[in-house]
């Protein structure tokens, strides 16, 4: 065997050397003269150190960020370094000014994913040209087409569908990359002007924070991350914040050094539990029992704050013992309002109406525990008792021993937790979306909220209950609603009048904003075209066949009183919940905009089997190939976050609007999703004119005009596809959320601190100030300024007087055993956000896979693995009644026996054929989540009040599998 040498080449050179070079002198080694005997110049080389110095140079640097849904972790200001026309690295800007001398600053904010987007954007998953499917859907064969050809085909199909079947057959699947800025302006506008449907995905993805909605009337409220530094006790309850909130994590470890205690309540000894002072290894899905046990002890030990309870909660409200409904003015007086509630006033020893324009009690001293008799307007007398009295009965059984049995912990731990909470001055929990992904998670959140309300640990520095962190920009909503340029600056007269009238009548701004966002879920409710916001969960259930997975299985210990189908019909019939298009009206076109439903949706195989065959076109706009592009008819290439200027909603945890600047031109033919949607509108208008199509009547009685679509979309050419940045500037300046800072200054600096909470559909719930030199305290307006809550009772509400809650005995919080979701199998499959990806966005990045594991894995406890003969790295099959998938086994002592875990984000294409991690998720609807109705705070509006999809606590069996292909 000849090694490492090309003989033919050798001979040629050798012969040449010997024949042609008879010079009898050589050049000196390594130096001048720079010619050798063979005539090859020696390249100038200045030494190895300079190679490294050279490596750390650049041509240009701009501020940037990643416009993806990192949620709690969002957003971080980065410097994006460009060399030779390519982004070659990024490093945190790390210039956040200190808030005050006491609080740790926010620097350097960033994470491993953000630190390698420069790698990701050029990796082999990147899409650079429009692709059209060749052959069958999912056949993995593509041809390159022009934007014009793709848009023409899509526009013609759209016009066919809108004219022949209905305007609402066109669906926008808006993924977590919804920026609530530029791309939202584009798709909300085209939705409004065409009455195509936007799927609201927040509850569908399992971030609905149902229990927060039930208790506080909203989900969006959160304090700043530095506020933890003021806490004395931080509860990692149902979350893993040191894993899922990388840039915020230092506030926890630093608060600990400041003296705060940390208690972790989690089944597994996770990355956050290791930093705690106390770890309570409760079983999955038992938080409600633990919280009610704690609440019981707090009351018993006198560790509650009665004044807070009287003022801020419905616990003092009276409930009729005969009907189990709240006692209202309508019970007592002719013409009385059903929205005026009563308490027993200890000062006057009489039943008195509770104030409703404010939380201030004045002279009232409502009783906590009380039973009374009141005379109704018909003269009859009924017994009434306070919610508090009822709560005492409810939690009586939750003794430490009983709770210990449910939670799988020693009773002493329940007592210890209660003592720690009861004795701490300032307590905060951490935001988490675990409960939203549990079938009875709402009950757990309500029970936890009870602990915080009883102890008054809400609305003060270092103290608070965390909801859903979101902080956006009200300016984008003007692009949803405006019919003309003037309305971009001020509300349309119809809406302005509604606001004025409602607020004059005593409603809060927050309540009216919530109502307005509820209107956007009712197409045709106002006589002009607004975007159509529809429940994603119901869409997938009804139109994509997800309900087929769960409807038949009444035996999963869900305690259903009626079939889910019956519940859904009731909710749709009573207009509690929207489903657009209506059942039976098949969707025909779906756009996934930076959205990956074939990865995300629990039970996603049904989308392939049921939804895709209904679609004439499935169009995916993304910058990379993913689970969904694999099934697309068209893949339209979207520019990345370093190739366009943009910003996105953030969170109060880090209250800085963060802006990304175009560092380099978009690769290939990619365009921003904003530009793509405007070009589509232009093409639709062009094709409509060519085909003589103009006004089309919508199923909801409105008229849309396709022949003027682009004209109206752009406000007669003022905001065109080229004006993405102009849209941003408008959004930035609208509402003056950033004090004196100009758009140009903000763009250059890359971040700017909010000066107040935006009054938009998704942020208004925060109800607090943003101090320049201090932390943000969620819900402070309610607690300190006595502004009513947007609940039915206008208080933190524990008594949910809605028929569905009565039907399921969930009027008051309680523990319910988790349903055996997926069938009667011994293991509980739980999950969590990954360290290695934001959803799926980095999940198949080679760099991320190289740094951890290249294949999906399921974590199994040591005992469960041994019992099944499973070893580390074995391929295992995870199965239940619904389906199965294969993954590698990761055997770990951190896992509680009986618990297994698969982290979020793996793509379908990571799994061996035959199923992915969603294949075992039946995701049954919990009927109480279908609640709605006039006067109720339990109803759908933006990002909340819609049904959820659940993937935690799925029952599975795991066994050794054949080696995967």
């Amino acid at each position: 065997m000849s090694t490492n040498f090309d003989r033919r080449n050798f001979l040629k050179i050798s012969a040449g050397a010997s024949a042609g070079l008879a010079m009898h002198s050589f050049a000196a080694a390594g130096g001048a003269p720079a010619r050798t005997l063979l005539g090859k110049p020696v390249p100038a080389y200045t030494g190895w150190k300079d190679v490294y110095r050279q490596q750390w140079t650049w041509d240009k640097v701009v501020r940037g960020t990643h416009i993806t849904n990192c949620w709690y972790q969002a957003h971080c200001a980065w410097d994006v370094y460009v060399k030779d026309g390519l982004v070659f690295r990024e490093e945190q800007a790390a210039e956040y000014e200190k808030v005050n001398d006491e609080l740790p600053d926010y620097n350097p904010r960033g994470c491993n994913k953000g630190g390698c987007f420069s790698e990701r954007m050029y990796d082999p998953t990147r899409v650079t040209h429009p692709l059209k499917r060749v052959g069958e859907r999912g056949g993995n064969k593509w041809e390159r087409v022009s934007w014009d050809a793709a848009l023409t085909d899509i526009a013609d199909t759209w016009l066919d569908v809108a004219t022949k079947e209905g305007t609402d057959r066109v669906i926008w699947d808006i993924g977590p990359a919804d920026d609530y800025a530029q791309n939202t302006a584009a798709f909300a506008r085209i939705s409004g002007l065409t009455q195509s449907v936007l799927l609201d995905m927040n509850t569908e993805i399992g971030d609905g924070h149902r229990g927060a909605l039930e208790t506080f009337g909203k989900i969006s409220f959160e304090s700043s991350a530095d506020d933890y530094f003021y806490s004395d006790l931080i509860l990692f309850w149902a979350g893993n914040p040191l894993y899922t909130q990388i840039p915020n994590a230092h506030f926890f470890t630093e608060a600990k050094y400041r003296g705060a205690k940390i208690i972790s309540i989690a089944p597994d000894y996770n990355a956050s539990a290791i930093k705690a002072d106390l770890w309570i290894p409760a079983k999955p899905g038992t938080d409600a029992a633990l919280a009610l046990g704690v609440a019981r002890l707090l009351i018993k030990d006198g560790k509650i704050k009665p004044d807070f309870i009287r003022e801020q909660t419905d616990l003092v409200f009276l409930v009729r013992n005969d009907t189990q409904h709240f006692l209202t003015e309508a019970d007592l007086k002719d013409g009385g309002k059903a929205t005026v509630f009563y308490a027993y006033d200890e000062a006057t020893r009489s039943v008195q109406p509770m104030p409703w324009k404010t939380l201030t009690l004045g002279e009232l001293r409502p009783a906590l525990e009380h039973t009374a008799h009141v005379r109704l307007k018909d003269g009859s007398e009924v017994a009434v008792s306070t919610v508090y009295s009822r709560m005492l009965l409810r939690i009586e059984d939750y003794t430490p021993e009983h709770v210990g049995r449910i939670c799988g912990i020693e009773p002493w731990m329940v007592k210890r937790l209660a003592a720690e909470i009861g004795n701490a001055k300032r307590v905060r929990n951490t935001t988490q979306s675990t409960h939203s992904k549990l079938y009875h998670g709402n009950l757990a959140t309500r029970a936890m909220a009870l602990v915080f309300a009883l102890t008054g640990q809400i609305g003060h520095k270092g103290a608070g209950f965390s909801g859903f962190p979101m902080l956006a920009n009200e300016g984008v909503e003007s692009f949803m609603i405006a019919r003309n340029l003037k309305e971009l600056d001020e509300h349309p007269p119809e809406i302005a009048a509604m606001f004025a009238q409602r607020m004059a009548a005593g409603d809060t701004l927050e309540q009216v904003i919530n109502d307005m966002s509820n209107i956007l879920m009712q197409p045709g409710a106002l006589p002009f075209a607004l975007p159509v916001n529809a429940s994603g969960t119901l869409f997938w259930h009804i139109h994509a066949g997800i309900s087929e997975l769960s409807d038949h299985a009444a035996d999963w210990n869900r305690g259903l009183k009626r079939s889910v189908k019956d519940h859904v019909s009731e909710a749709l019939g009573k207009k509690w919940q929207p489903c657009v298009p209506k059942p039976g009206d098949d969707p025909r076109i779906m756009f996934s905009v930076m959205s990956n439903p074939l990865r995300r949706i629990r039970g996603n195989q049904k989308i392939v089997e049921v939804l895709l065959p209904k679609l004439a076109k499935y169009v995916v706009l993304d910058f990379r190939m993913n689970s969904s592009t694999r099934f697309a008819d068209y893949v339209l290439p979207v520019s990345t976050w370093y190739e366009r200027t943009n910003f996105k909603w953030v969170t109060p945890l880090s209250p800085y609007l963060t802006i990304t600047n175009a560092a380099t031109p978009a690769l290939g033919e990619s365009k921003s999703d904003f530009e793509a949607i405007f070009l589509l509108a232009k093409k639709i208008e062009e094709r409509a004119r060519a085909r003589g199509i103009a006004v089309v009547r919508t199923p909801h009685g409105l008229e849309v005009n396709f022949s003027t679509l682009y004209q109206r979309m752009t406000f007669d050419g003022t905001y065109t596809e080229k004006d993405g940045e102009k849209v941003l500037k408008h959004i930035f300046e609208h509402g003056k959320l950033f004090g004196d800072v100009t758009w140009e200054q903000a763009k250059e600096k890359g971040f700017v601190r909010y000066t107040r909470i935006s009054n938009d559909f998704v942020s208004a719930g925060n109800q607090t100030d943003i101090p320049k030199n201090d932390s943000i305290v969620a819900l402070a307006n309610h607690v300190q300024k006595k502004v009513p809550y947007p609940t039915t009772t206008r208080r933190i509400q524990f008594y949910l007087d809605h028929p569905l809650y009565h039907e399921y005995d969930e009027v008051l919080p309680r523990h319910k055993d988790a349903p055996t979701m997926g069938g009667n199998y011994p293991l509980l499959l739980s999950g969590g956000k990954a360290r290695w990806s934001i959803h799926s966005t980095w999940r198949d990045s080679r760099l991320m896979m190289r740094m951890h594991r290249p294949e999906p894995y399921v974590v199994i406890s040591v005992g469960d693995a041994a019992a099944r003969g499973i070893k580390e790295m074995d391929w295992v099959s995870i199965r239940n009644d619904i389906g199965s998938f294969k993954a590698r086994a990761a055997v770990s002592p951190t896992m509680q026996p009986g618990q297994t875990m698969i982290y979020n984000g793996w793509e379908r294409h990571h799994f061996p054929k035959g199923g992915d991690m969603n294949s075992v998720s039946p995701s049954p609807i919990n009927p109480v989540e279908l609640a709605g109705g006039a006067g109720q705070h339990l109803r759908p509006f933006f990002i909340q009040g819609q049904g959820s999809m659940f993937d935690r606590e799925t029952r599975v069996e795991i066994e050794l599998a054949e080696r995967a292909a």
Partner: protein
Amino acid sequence: MKCKRVSRIDLVLEGGQWSGGDSTQVEMIATPLPMQPTGYVIKSWAEKPYGTIKTLTVDAVHDGHALAVRLQWEVPPATTTDFPPAVAFALPVKATSPLVLMGMAEAPMHILRWQGGAQAGVRSVLAKGIGSSNHGPDVGQKALARQDGNRFSVVITRVLGSGAGAAPLKAGTTTKIGFAAWDGGNEERAGIKSFSVDWLDLVLAA
């Protein structure tokens, strides 16, 4: 050893006669452990045999323009693939110094060293003492290597002539030549090698 003059080296390489069976068997021994340049090398090789290449079979020819040296040897089965097989011959630039010292400041040696593996090729090296070797002059050095199981055959060529830092070679003169070989499969590299102990005469036919 004798270096026969041939008409064209390339013809020899293509299968022509080398030195007509006039090969030289060069006896090799392991470099002395105490002379290894670092404590670590001494310590880590104290219990481990090296210098496994005991004999090199050497042939040399020239055609008036270039020199070709064929080196052949055999190694025991490899225990690692981390290090390449390597072989080298050294020629004095001016005066000779003890071969084991790898040259001296006033008596540098000019080495042509071939190695296999990922960085296969032949390198011109100028050495002025142990651990001091540096880039040597370009003398048109080339190599042709063949491995057959545990047997290696490597031909190294260079042009004749002289120049700064280069060992001069001229037809019809005699110079010195020394050898070193590394059994990479035994993790031999750097001073862990076998060598020819002393210089041999290299007689270039006129």
